[in-house]
C-alpha cells in the first residue's frame, strides 16, 4: 500500500476513530449510534459487493443477517458452553450465512434482476415464518441473550455490559470487511464480477463462469452478513422474529443495506459508510427529536432516497467524486 494522499487521510481517520472514544466514553448514546453506524456500514458493504459490483440486487440480506443472529440465539438457548462464551458463534453465524447464501444462490441465480430480488424476498419470508412458528428457535417470543461475562486480561478487563468493547469490535469488523471488498473490487475477480453485472451473456460468451462466480460472491456476502447478525444479536441481547421494523428476518432488515448503499453510492467503497452515517446517524437524531411520533426518521430517509435518485444517481459519494474530478 503506497502512501498516497488518500491513504494518509484514511490512516488519520482510523486513528481518530480509535482514539475518539476516550473522549466521549461516558456518552453511551453516542457510542451506541456509532456502533450501529459501523455495523450497518459493514452490512451495506456486504450487500454492495453482491449488488453494486456483481449486479445481483438481493433483497434477502435479512436471511443471512437474521440467521446469523439466530445461530447465536439457538446456541445460547440450547447449549451451556455458548451461554458463557458466545463469541465463537460469530464465526459459526458467518458460515450459516455463507451456506444459506450458496443455497439461495443455487436456487435463485437462474433468475435475473427484479425476478431475482423477488425470489430472495419470498425465500426470506418463508424462512422467517418457519422460524417464528418453531419451538426450537424460540417461536414468536424470540430469544433473549444474556450479556457475555467480562473477559479479564493482565492489563485490563473487557466489560461487555458497556458499549465501548462493541465500538471497537464493530469498528474493526467494518475495516476488515471494507478492506476485503476493496481488494476484491481491485482484483481480477472484481473485474469478472463487473463484467457479469454489465452484460452477463457477453461475459459468459467470453468464458466467464458466471454462475460459479455469483455463488462465490454470495458465499462471501452471506458470510459477512452472518457474522454481523450474530454480533448484532449479542449486542442487542434480543432476537425479534416479528414482522415489525426491528425484526431481524424482516424485509426492513433486507432494505436497510439497500437504502444505505444507494444513498452513499453503489459500487464504491466509501459509499456504504457515507450512507450509513446519513441513514443511521441522522435517523437516530430525528428519532430523538421526534420520539413522540414514530416513523419520522423513515420519512426523512424516504425523502433523501428520492432526492438522491433525482440529483445523484450514483449516490452521494458518486456526486462528490464527479465534482472533484472536474475541478
Amino acid at each position, binding site marked *: 500500500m503506497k502512501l498516497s494522499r488518500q491513504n494518509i487521510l484514511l490512516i488519520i481517520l482510523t486513528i481518530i476513530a480509535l482514539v475518539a472514544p476516550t473522549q466521549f466514553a461516558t456518552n453511551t448514546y453516542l457510542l451506541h449510534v456509532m456502533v450501529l453506524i459501523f455495523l450497518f456500514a459493514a452490512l451495506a458493504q456486504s450487500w454492495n459487493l453482491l449488488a453494486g459490483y456483481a449486479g445481483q440486487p438481493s433483497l434477502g440480506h435479512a436471511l443471512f443477517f437474521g440467521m446469523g443472529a439466530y445461530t447465536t440465539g439457538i446456541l445460547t438457548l440450547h447449549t451451556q458452553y455458548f451461554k458463557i462464551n458466545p463469541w465463537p458463534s460469530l464465526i459459526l453465524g458467518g458460515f450459516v450465512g455463507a451456506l444459506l447464501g450458496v443455497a439461495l444462490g443455487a436456487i435463485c441465480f437462474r433468475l435475473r434482476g427484479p425476478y431475482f430480488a423477488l425470489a430472495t424476498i419470498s425465500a426470506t419470508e418463508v424462512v422467517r415464518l418457519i422460524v417464528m412458528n418453531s419451538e426450537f428457535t424460540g417461536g414468536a417470543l424470540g430469544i433473549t441473550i444474556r450479556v457475555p461475562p467480562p473477559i479479564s486480561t493482565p492489563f485490563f478487563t473487557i466489560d461487555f455490559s458497556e458499549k465501548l468493547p462493541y465500538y471497537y469490535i464493530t469498528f474493526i469488523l467494518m475495516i476488515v470487511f471494507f478492506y476485503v471488498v476493496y481488494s476484491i473490487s481491485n482484483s481480477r475477480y472484481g473485474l469478472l464480477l463487473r463484467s457479469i453485472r454489465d452484460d452477463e451473456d457477453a461475459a459468459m460468451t467470453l468464458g466467464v463462469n458466471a454462475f460459479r462466480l455469483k455463488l462465490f460472491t454470495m458465499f462471501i456476502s452471506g458470510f459477512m452478513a452472518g457474522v454481523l447478525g450474530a454480533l448484532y444479536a449479542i449486542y442487542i441481547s434480543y432476537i425479534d422474529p416479528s414482522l415489525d421494523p426491528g425484526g431481524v428476518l424482516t424485509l426492513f432488515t433486507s432494505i436497510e443495506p439497500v437504502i444505505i448503499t444507494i444513498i452513499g453510492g453503489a459500487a464504491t467503497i466509501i459509499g456504504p459508510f457515507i450512507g450509513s452515517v446519513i441513514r443511521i446517524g441522522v435517523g437516530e437524531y430525528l428519532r430523538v427529536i421526534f420520539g413522540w411520533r414514530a416513523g419520522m426518521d423513515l420519512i426523512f*430517509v424516504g425523502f433523501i432516497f428520492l432526492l438522491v435518485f433525482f440529483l445523484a444517481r450514483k449516490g452521494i459519494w458518486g456526486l462528490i467524486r464527479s465534482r472533484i474530478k472536474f475541478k
Partner: protein
Amino acid sequence: MALEGLIASIIVHGLMLGAIYATIAMGMSLLFGVMGVKNLAHGDFAVLGMYTSFWLFTLFSISPLISIPIAFALFFFIGMVITRFIFKHVIGEMLGSIILTFGLSILIENVMLLVWGGDYRKIPVEYGSYSFGPISVGGSYVVAFAVTILLIILTQLFLSRTKIGIAIRAVSQDPEAAETLGISADTIRLVGGGLGMALAGTGGAILALIYYIFPYLGILLTLYALIICVFAGLGNVVGTIFGGIIIGIAQSIATVQLPYSLTPVVGFILFILVLLFRPKGLFTRG
C-alpha cells in the same frame, strides 16, 4: 357434509379475496405495460385507498360503497399527476423505477404512520350474512365481490372495446410503432398511469370493506400484486385475474391447514416454484 361445506366455504372466500388482489395487481400490470415501470409503491396506494374509504366514512359518514367510485376518481387523478411528474423520469427503466418507487413506498408508508398512527382500523359496517346452500358468507364479502367483478368487467371492456383502451394496449406492446400510427404515447401513458393507480386505489377501497387497515399493509399488498403479476406474466391483464384467484384460494386453504401466522408461506412458496419453472408466467405460451 360439514367438511364439504367447509371446503366450499374456503374456496368461495379465497375466490372473493383473490378477486380483490387481482384488481390491485391489474393496476400494477397496466402500469408496467404502459410505462415499463415496476411500481413497488403500488400496495401503498391501495392502502391509501383503504384510508380514503375509512376517513370518508368516519368524518362524513359516507357509505363505503359510495367511496369506491370516489376513490376511483381520486386515484385516477393522483395517478395522472404521478405519471406526469414522477414516473416520466423512469419510463422503460426497470431498475431505476424499482429504486424510485421503493423510496416512494418508504415515504408513503411512514407518512401514513406519522399522520394516522399504527392502529388496526376497520370500517364498522355490516351487510348481514348470506347463505348459499351449505355455505355462509358475510354480507360485506358478497358486496365486495360483486363490486370487484363489476370493476374487472368494466376495465376489460374499456381496454378491449374503446379507442383509448385499444391505444393503451398498443402502447404496451410497442410504443414506437404506436406513435407512427398517430397515437400520442405520452397522452396514453397519462391515461394508463391514471387507470393503473385508480385500480390500486379502488381495490384498496373495496378491500377496506372486509379487511383491517394499517400503514404497513402496503408492502404485503405490493408483494401479493407482484406475485400475481409474475403468475400471469407481467403485462398480461387477463392472466392477473386467474393469478389472483390462485393466490386467494391457496391462502384460504392454508388458513385451515396451517397455523394462522404461517399462511402467507403458501403464496411465497408457490411464487418461488413458478419463478423457477415457469419464469414467464403460468398463462403465457412458450
